[in-house]
């Protein structure tokens, strides 16, 4: 068996189970990825893993693009694509199936009640996500203050494009660091 193929297979064997076990995403996934790619398979050194994590946070897209970078380290572009598919496909199929089953009861009283009942919980989860990021952010009070200002601006002017705020925030913090 050629080495490239072996590496791709190993990536699949690591990321497919993670895909189906990672309820709530985030922290538990990160710890597992680090263990597998540093200690078990040696795809990255601990330092490289920390760097890749920082890079994945700088890129747009879902927060879990770190898997793409681990795949890329392990087996180039083929590895990047394989790891991405292996992490996202199984969980996507599962949620697709659940949503489809769920959609069959559309129109019934309790279908509408469940969807309406989930709404306030979902709003709470979105707000909790913001608090979680705020807590792990290394920037301290400056980041907190900027986050509050951004919140107020977006609520006051809903048509303001968020990218303008993102560019302004990045530029201001960058300039402050250079000063």
């Amino acid at each position, binding site marked *: 068996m050629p080495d490239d193929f072996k590496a791709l297979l190993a990536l699949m064997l690591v990321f497919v189970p993670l895909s*189906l076990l*990672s309820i*709530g*995403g985030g922290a538990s996934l990160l710890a597992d990825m680090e263990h597998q790619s540093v200690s078990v398979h040696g795809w990255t050194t601990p330092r490289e893993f920390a*760097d890749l994590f*920082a*890079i*994945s946070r700088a890129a*747009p*897209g*879902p*927060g*879990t*693009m770190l898997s*793409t970078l681990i795949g890329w380290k392990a087996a180039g572009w083929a590895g990047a694509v394989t790891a991405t598919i292996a*992490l*996202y496909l199984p*969980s*996507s199929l*599962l*949620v697709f199936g*659940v*949503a489809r089953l769920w959609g069959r009861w559309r129109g019934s009283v*309790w279908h509408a*009640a*469940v*969807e*309406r*009942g*989930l*709404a*306030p*919980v979902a*709003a*709470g*989860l*979105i*707000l909790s*996500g*913001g*608090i979680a*990021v705020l807590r792990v*952010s290394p*920037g301290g009070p400056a*980041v*907190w203050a900027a*986050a509050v200002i*951004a*919140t107020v601006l*977006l609520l006051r002017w809903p048509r303001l494009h*968020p*990218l303008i*705020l*993102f560019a*302004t*925030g*990045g530029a201001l*913090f*960058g300039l402050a*660091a250079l000063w």
Partner: protein
Amino acid sequence: MPKGVPLGGVTAETGNAVREHHRIGLPAIFSAFFQLGVTSFGGNTAAWLYHQIVRRRHWVTDGEFLSDVALGRITPGSGGVNLTVQVGQRLRGAAGAVAAVVGLLSGPLVIVVALAVAYARIGWSPAAHAVLDGIAAAAIGLTFATGLKLLPSGSARFGPLAVTLATVICVGVLRWPMLPVVLCLAPISIGLVLVRRRNA
């Protein structure tokens, strides 16, 4: 529940009716989610999706969005990708889900590897870390603004608001594991809806 009961300003039924009248093409779905993927800095796909797909394009309603957020978070995998699967499915079935997810992930996949290559060549400056902090602050602002905009509204909002507050305290402040909290609060919230419906 009669049709037309407000849910954050819209009805649960309008989304489907609108989509039957204006079938959204697969290329349009792909390109909308591609744009979403390459612009969604800060890692919060849900907040960006709300801005680009719900507020700007009106492809799904607030109620549908929130329901998909909740299911996407309690099933395994990335909440943002799970949300994208469900919204794509609402728009055009299985093909819509594939177009949305491939659109969402293909741009960031190339960008994140390009960043890694650039990093290997030129390294990382302290200013770059500061720029990331600034972007993170804006992302947190976008998340809070989205959550606050979607707070329960209408005449009978006090029960739902209490549920939202309890979720924020348990998951956000006390950092309890999300799944048990949702499995506990969701039935209470659904019960509130049913009781209100019976009394109406």
